[in-house]
């Protein structure tokens, strides 16, 4: 990689993309997410006397909360049908249904069941709503509160825009419901959403662009050593008495070192210049980067072995990186896609990298928490490399 232009692309492009994606989608964080509440228990309440029925109490607590108002635009809808329609046409991200038997269940101490209707295209916003609702509802009963989520099957709009601000909103919501001067009488029982770091669009795309461009860089580096001189210098090299493992290992090492250098530059630039939050565990972050690099090197070896010409490899490489980046969630979070497609991210080197980095970033995960993703990347590296070498041998 003596080519300064290539270096410029590999270091400059991610920074530019982080800025574009981050600022284009950053606005989404400021506007509230539209949600609705439907109280179906009304008129069915058996509660008598001066006390308001628990359903009323819940709904008004939600509607009147100033803190929630910062995050959500909440309206009350009269019917479930209307709520479903609005979720489906995207005018609201989610709706909470307080079911008909709610008050009786609370009164008799039975488990309380709330229903959240949500649009799969704005899962994260809806997910926040769901968490908040769970937290709210928990105070009404000693019995467990369960929230059942019903997906509405229509997707449109710009899910990634909602997505982008999602992390920050989760954090704000949690803060709202957990702070001491929060809503009167509200205690969070559900600890699941605790400990999340607020992340913004620039944080998300900071990670994803670095993951993707590391892949470009390592792929590029691997091709320039594996493929470019394959028929000539590599052949001559393989005809020297130096052991093959040493030759191939040496090449891979140089790719690896260059990749780690690229990572260092991108890490420092994104973290200190753009303020991207990488999370606390730098070591774990670096280990994940190293594992990604190995996986990409394996991928490059495979591509080099199946592509008949250097040109073909040069064409396939970037295409593969882009597909990997796409299904790995580099351009928008895969969580906005329907559940059944989500496992595709595990076919992607970027996907595994993002999973691990995301955990370090938002959940404060450390090396011990991300070893699964690291192991997956190493396994990908091993398998692809072995197949690549085997294919190369087979061609000879």
């Amino acid at each position, binding site marked *: 990689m*003596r080519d300064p232009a290539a270096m410029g692309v590999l270091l400059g492009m991610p920074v530019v993309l982080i800025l574009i994606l981050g600022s284009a989608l950053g606005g989404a964080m400021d506007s509230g997410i539209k949600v609705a509440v439907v109280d179906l228990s009304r008129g069915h309440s058996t509660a008598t006397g001066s006390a308001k029925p628990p359903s009323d109490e819940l709904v008004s607590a939600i509607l009147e909360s100033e803190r929630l108002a910062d995050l959500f635009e909440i309206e009350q809808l009269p019917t479930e049908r209307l709520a479903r329609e609005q979720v489906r046409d995207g005018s609201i991200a989610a709706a909470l249904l307080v079911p008909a038997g709610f008050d009786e269940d609370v009164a008799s101490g039975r488990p309380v069941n709330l229903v959240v209707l949500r649009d799969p295209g704005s899962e994260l916003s809806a997910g926040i709503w769901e968490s908040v609702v769970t937290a709210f509802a928990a105070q009404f009963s000693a019995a467990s509160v369960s929230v059942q989520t019903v997906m509405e099957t229509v997707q449109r709009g710009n899910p990634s825009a909602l997505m982008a601000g999602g992390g920050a909103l989760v954090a704000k919501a949690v803060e709202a419901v957990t702070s001491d001067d929060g809503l009167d009488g509200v205690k969070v029982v559900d600890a699941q959403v605790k400990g999340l770091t607020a992340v913004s669009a620039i944080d998300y795309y900071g990670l994803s662009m670095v993951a993707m461009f590391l892949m470009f860089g390592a792929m590029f580096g691997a091709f320039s050593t594996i493929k470019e*001189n394959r*028929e*000539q*210098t590599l*052949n*001559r*090299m*393989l*005809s*020297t*008495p*130096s*052991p093959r493992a040493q030759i191939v290992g040496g090449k891979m090492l140089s790719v690896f070192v260059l990749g780690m250098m690229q990572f260092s530059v991108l890490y420092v630039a994104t973290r200190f210049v753009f303020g991207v939050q990488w999370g606390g565990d730098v070591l774990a972050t670096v280990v994940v980067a190293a594992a990604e690099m190995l996986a990409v090197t394996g991928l490059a070896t495979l591509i080099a072995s199946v592509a008949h010409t250097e040109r073909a490899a040069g064409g396939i490489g970037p295409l593969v990186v882009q597909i990997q980046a796409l299904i790995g969630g580099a351009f928008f979070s895969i969580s906005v896609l329907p559940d059944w497609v989500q496992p595709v991210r595990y076919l992607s080197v970027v996907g595994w990298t993002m999973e691990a980095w995301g955990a370090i970033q938002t959940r404060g995960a450390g090396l011990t928490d991300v070893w699964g993703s690291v192991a997956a990347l190493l396994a990908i590296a091993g398998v692809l490399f072995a197949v690549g070498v085997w294919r190369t041998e087979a061609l*000879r």
Partner: protein
Amino acid sequence: MSVIVEIRDLVKCFGELTAVDHVTFEIERGEIFGLLGPNGAGKTTTISMISCLLAPDEGDVIVAGHSVRTHSIEVRRALGIVPQEIALYPTLTAAENLKFWGRMYGLSGRELDEAVDYGLEMAGLADKARVRVETFSGGMKRRINIAAGVLHRPQVLLMDEPTVGIDPQSRNHILETVRELNRDGMTVVYTSHYMEEVETLCDRIAIVDHGRVIADGTLDELRALVGDEDHIRISLGDASPEGSAEAAEGDADTGVAEETETPPEMLAILEGIRQVPGVTRADAVGSALEVLAGDAAAVLGGVVESIAAAGAHLRAIEVVEPDLESVFLHLTGRGLRD
């Protein structure tokens, strides 16, 4: 003399194509061995199997007592290679390239430095040591390409068409280098489709065609295959604008074989010559004609007459020693290059 490279019944297929088809020959220590054949004959494939780049489908190669199948490291240590394609790093200087390849052959320290100097000297490029290889002419690259293969003083040097596409001066330099290396005791396997190079350089020659060895031996042994008839080579004005037979067999700098059909007027001329009493055979070799006769002097008059009768313009006619071109023609019915 002892055998240093033994090629036993070697086979290599690429899909349907049998690129090397049961090839067997031996190379003696200290000789320059020529591997001569037209484009696509399987020369590079054979060399690649000797140098452990391709695994044989069948057969084996023994180099300095080691099998390529079981002891490839030892084989590679005994060999030096000059690949057909330039195998150098264009952005590195001549000295850097040599240093790199020397190291790959296990040289280091003083030994490496001396080898680099030796290589530069040999290539006649000592004054260009610090110049990037990408700025070199084709001939200069070829010379460095050769030097990179001999830094470690291999027992056997495999050279795959080392003179393709270069100027006559560089070519002479290279041929002289090969002779020098050989004088120092290096066994050389010299691959080419230029028969005159092989003729002047090589002690023994194997002629390959379509993956098979069709003949091998010394130049004299190969010549004897054509019999003791006289060879008459004829150049025609119309068909051969270049003119002489020398041009046809001389410095064919393109090295590209064209699959040309013999034109009908040429066929008519050949038919006429074959009618001349005493002529045993007449063939087209590219743009020239090759005529065999028991006694050249007795048929020359008749041959010239029949050419004139066919309306062709005679440029040159000569009686020649049978060369490898004649041998190849005799064995295959085709010219080596055409």
